[in-house]
C-alpha cells in the first residue's frame, strides 16, 4: 500500500504522502475490508469445493472424496431444484426490472417537468419510503394482498364483474405466488430506478428538445431520438440497482412467495441452516455471484464514469 509518486494530486495530498499519514488513511479501511469482506468471500469459495461431513463443523476435505470436490457445482446443472431456482430468480428479477423501468421512466421524466417547488417535495416523497423499513414495506403488501383485505376484495369485485358468472371467485389468489414476489419487488425497488433516471434526465439540455421540435420532429419522436439515447446511462444504472438485489432477494420470496418455487436466495439460506449442507450452499452462492459479476462490473463501470463526469 506504499504510495507512489503523487502525480496530479494537490499540495494537501503531497503532504499526506510525505508524512506517511496516507498509509493510515488508506490502510485502515483497506485492511478492514480485506479481513471482513474479502477473506469471508474466499472462505465461501473454499467451502464450495469441500465435502459435507457429519462432523462439527459439517465439512472436510478429502476422505473418500477428491480433495477438491466439485459435486456441488455438478448438482447445479443436474438437480432440478437448482435449475428451477435460478430460472425463477432471473425471470422474476428481469420482470421486476422491466416493470420498474416502465413505471419509473415516465415518473422520472414527469419529475423533471413539474415546477421546481413541487419537484423538491415529490423527490422527497420518492426517497421517503427508501428510508423507512424495507421489511415493513413488504409487510404492508401482505396486508393488502390477503384474501379478506379491502384491496383484494375490491379487485375481486372488478374481476367478477368482468368475467362470466361461473368463473367468479371469492378472492383473488394473490399471496404466495410469483405475481406477489414481482409486485412487491417493483414496489420496494422502484426508488432505485427513479433516482438514477431522474439524475440523468435532469442534466439534459431542454434546448436540444426545442431544436428538434423546431426542426419539425413530433413530441414522441423527440423523446425517441433525443431524450431516450441520452438517458441510457441512467437506465443501465437503475436497471442494475433493481436487477442485482432482486435476483438474490431472500425476504420477499420468504414472506409472499410460493414455497413450491423458491428463489435462489432462499435456496442458499435453506441449504445452509436447515439442510446444514455448507458446501452445497457455498456452491449455489458462488454460482449466483458468477452470474452477477457481469452486471456488477457494468454498474461499477458506469459509476466510475459518472464520478469522472462530476469531477
Amino acid at each position: 500500500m506504499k504510495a507512489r509518486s503523487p502525480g496530479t494530486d494537490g499540495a494537501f495530498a503531497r503532504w499526506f504522502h510525505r508524512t506517511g499519514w496516507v498509509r493510515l488513511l488508506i490502510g485502515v479501511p483497506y485492511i478492514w475490508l480485506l479481513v471482513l469482506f474479502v477473506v469471508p468471500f474466499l472462505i465461501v469459495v473454499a467451502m464450495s469445493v469441500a465435502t459435507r461431513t457429519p462432523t462439527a463443523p459439517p465439512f472436510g476435505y478429502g476422505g473418500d472424496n477428491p480433495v477438491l470436490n466439485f459435486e456441488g457445482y455438478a448438482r447445479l446443472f443436474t438437480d432440478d431444484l437448482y435449475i428451477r431456482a435460478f430460472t425463477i430468480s432471473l425471470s422474476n428479477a428481469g420482470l421486476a426490472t422491466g416493470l420498474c423501468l416502465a413505471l419509473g421512466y415516465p415518473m422520472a421524466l414527469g419529475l423533471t417537468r413539474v415546477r421546481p417547488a413541487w419537484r423538491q417535495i415529490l423527490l422527497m416523497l420518492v426517497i421517503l419510503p427508501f428510508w423507512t423499513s424495507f421489511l415493513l414495506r413488504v409487510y404492508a403488501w401482505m396486508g393488502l394482498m390477503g384474501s379478506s383485505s379491502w384491496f383484494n376484495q375490491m379487485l375481486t369485485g372488478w374481476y367478477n364483474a368482468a368475467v362470466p358468472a361461473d368463473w367468479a371467485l371469492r378472492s383473488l389468489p394473490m399471496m404466495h405466488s410469483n405475481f406477489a414476489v414481482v409486485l412487491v419487488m417493483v414496489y420496494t425497488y422502484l426508488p432505485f430506478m427513479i433516482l438514477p433516471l431522474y439524475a440523468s434526465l435532469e442534466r439534459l439540455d431542454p434546448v436540444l428538445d426545442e431544436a428538434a421540435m423546431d426542426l419539425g420532429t413530433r413530441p414522441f419522436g423527440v423523446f425517441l431520438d433525443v431524450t431516450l439515447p441520452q438517458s441510457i446511462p441512467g437506465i443501465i444504472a437503475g436497471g442494475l440497482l433493481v436487477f442485482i438485489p432482486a435476483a438474490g432477494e431472500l425476504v420477499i420470496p420468504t414472506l409472499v412467495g410460493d414455497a413450491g418455487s423458491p428463489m435462489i436466495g432462499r435456496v442458499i439460506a435453506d441449504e445452509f441452516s436447515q439442510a446444514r449442507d455448507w458446501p452445497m450452499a457455498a456452491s449455489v452462492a458462488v454460482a449466483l455471484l458468477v452470474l452477477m459479476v457481469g452486471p456488477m462490473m457494468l454498474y461499477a463501470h458506469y459509476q466510475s464514469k459518472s464520478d469522472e463526469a462530476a469531477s
Partner: protein
Amino acid sequence: MNRRPVFLICVLGFGFAFFYIPILSMMVYSFNASRLATVWGGFSTKWYASLFANRQIVAALVLSLKIALLSATVATILGTMAGIALARFRRFRGRTLFAGLVTAPLVMPEVITGISSLLLFLLMADWIGWPGQRGFTTITLAHITFSMVFVTTVVQARMIQADRAIEEAAMDLGSRPWQVMFDVTLPVIFPAILSGWLLAFTISLDDVVITSFTTGPGSTTLPLLIWSKVKLGVTPDVNALATLTVLIVGVGVALAGWLLNRAARRREREMRLAYRANE
C-alpha cells in the same frame, strides 16, 4: 414544449398512489379494534398500548439502537477515510482493488454477504476460539462492513465536488496540514459525513438478512423480531409498530430534508447578495 405533459402527470399520480396506499392502509388498520388484521372492527388504540407493554419489543429496540449507533459511528470513520483517500489520491498501489472493494458490498446480494460473514465467524471460533458466541459484536462487525461503503460513496462524491483550491489556499496562507484537514476539509464535507452517518444508521437499524446470519441465541434485534412475527402472517400489533416506525422515520427525514434545503437556499441567497455587492 409548454403543453402540460398530461400523460406524465397521470403516471406520477399512479406511482405515488402505488407508493403510499399500502402504507396508509397499514396505518389505518393499526387502529382496528378487531383481532383479525384485515377486517375492520371499529376504532381502537389498544395495539399501541400492548406494544409499549411488551418487554420483548422494547429490549429488541434497545439492542437495535445500540448496534446502529455503534456501527454507524465506526462505519462513518472508516468510510470517510476511504472516501477522502479515493477522492484525493489518484494513484496508489492497490487503488483499483480498493475502489472495487468499496463498490462490491454495495451491490453484493445480501444472502452472500450474510453467509460469508457467518462462515468467517464460525471458522474463527473453531480456530482461535473467538467469537465464542455470536451476538452484539458479530452483528456490529458485519453492519460496519456493509454500511461503511455507503458512507464512502457519499463522502467521495462530495470530496470530488469540493474545491481543492480552498485546501491549497489554506496551506499557502501558512496553515499546518493537519489544520487544513480539520479546519477546511472536514467542515466542507461535514454535511456528507452527516448524511453518510444517517444512511449507515438507518441501514443498520433496518437490516434483516445479514443480521439473521450473524446473530446468536439471545440477540434479537427489532427487525429480527418483526421478521419472526410477520412470517406467521399479518397481525394488528405489527401494524401499530410499523405505523410508529414510518411516522418517526418519515417526520425525521422530512425535517432533515427541509432544514438542509433551507440552509442551501439561504447560502445561495447570500452568495447572490455577495456577488451583487461586489459588482
